[in-house]
């Protein structure tokens, strides 16, 4: 299983993602944002951090970078793409997943552990969460407030595209467990074909008991078997 981790100017979770992928059994390599071709891969990850200063809107400049033409081709041909945090913002700006990530309701950068409920557990990145009532992962973002218009939300629900929602430690989806004001507590969404996932929490930070747990590994391990 081969994975590529895209490096944008400002990415800072790239090394964590690569290390975690390798821990899960992938052969992983970096892809520079100026690349105009990519090798044969089973997975492309857009890591968290920042990109191009996040000028204009988070992820908007990166969404039009050279490598993204290749990522779009890869995704449109059915390739698996995972965007984490800034990677999710880039995917949404590139139109690869629906919706948009706005500034947190509190206007504050939030860095903490949260609980998530896997909503659609039939797809590649979420199928290993079937047994989980609440998944503990970390968030670290200033712009993670998910929004989509009414028609868009209906389409998400109709096509079963919602991957994760923020919940309490008991698995209850409540207003109190929504850290950033996201519409309907949404923390992660799939594209229509379910080969592209964008999520705000950082699974790569929960791939080792030394960093707080291993519940993030399930996302990457969904690609094996």
């Amino acid at each position: 299983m081969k994975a590529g981790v895209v490096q944008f100017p400002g990415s800072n979770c790239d090394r964590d993602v690569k290390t975690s992928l390798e821990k899960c059994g992938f052969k992983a390599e970096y892809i520079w944002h100026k690349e105009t071709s990519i090798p044969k891969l089973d997975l492309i990850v857009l890591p968290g951090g920042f990109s191009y200063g996040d000028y204009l809107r988070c992820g908007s400049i990166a969404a039009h970078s050279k490598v993204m033409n290749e990522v779009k081709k890869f995704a449109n041909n059915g390739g698996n793409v995972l965007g984490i945090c800034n990677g999710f913002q880039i995917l949404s700006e590139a139109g690869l997943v629906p919706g948009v990530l706005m500034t947190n309701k509190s206007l504050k950068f939030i860095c903490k552990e949260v609980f998530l409920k896997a909503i659609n557990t039939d797809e590649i990145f979420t199928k290993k969460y079937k047994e989980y009532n609440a998944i503990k992962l970390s968030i670290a973002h200033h712009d993670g407030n998910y929004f989509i218009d009414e028609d868009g939300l209906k389409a998400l629900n109709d096509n079963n595209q919602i991957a994760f929602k923020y919940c309490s430690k008991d698995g209850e989806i409540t207003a109190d467990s929504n850290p950033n004001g996201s519409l309907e507590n949404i923390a992660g969404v799939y594209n229509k074909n379910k080969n592209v996932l964008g999520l705000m929490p950082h699974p790569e930070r929960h791939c080792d008991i030394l960093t707080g747990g291993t519940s993030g590994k399930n996302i990457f391990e969904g690609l094996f078997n």
Partner: protein
Amino acid sequence: MKAKVYVTLKNGVLDPQGKAIEQSISNLGFDGISNVKQGKFIELDINETDQKKATEKVNKICENLLANTVIENFKYELVA
């Protein structure tokens, strides 16, 4: 030709920055100020003399980059 582009949040989209500014205005002692909304102003030069072509170009630039039409509206003026 110069384009002056205004990008604003659509109605109904949460604007916590606008709210914070509104609060601050109220703290300054100004009464009766409401519906404060924050947007962006972007100016650019276009090497184009034909109004129609310039309009087409600016429209595309706005739709593809300057505004995220899921949450934002845009309008612009072309100044010769």
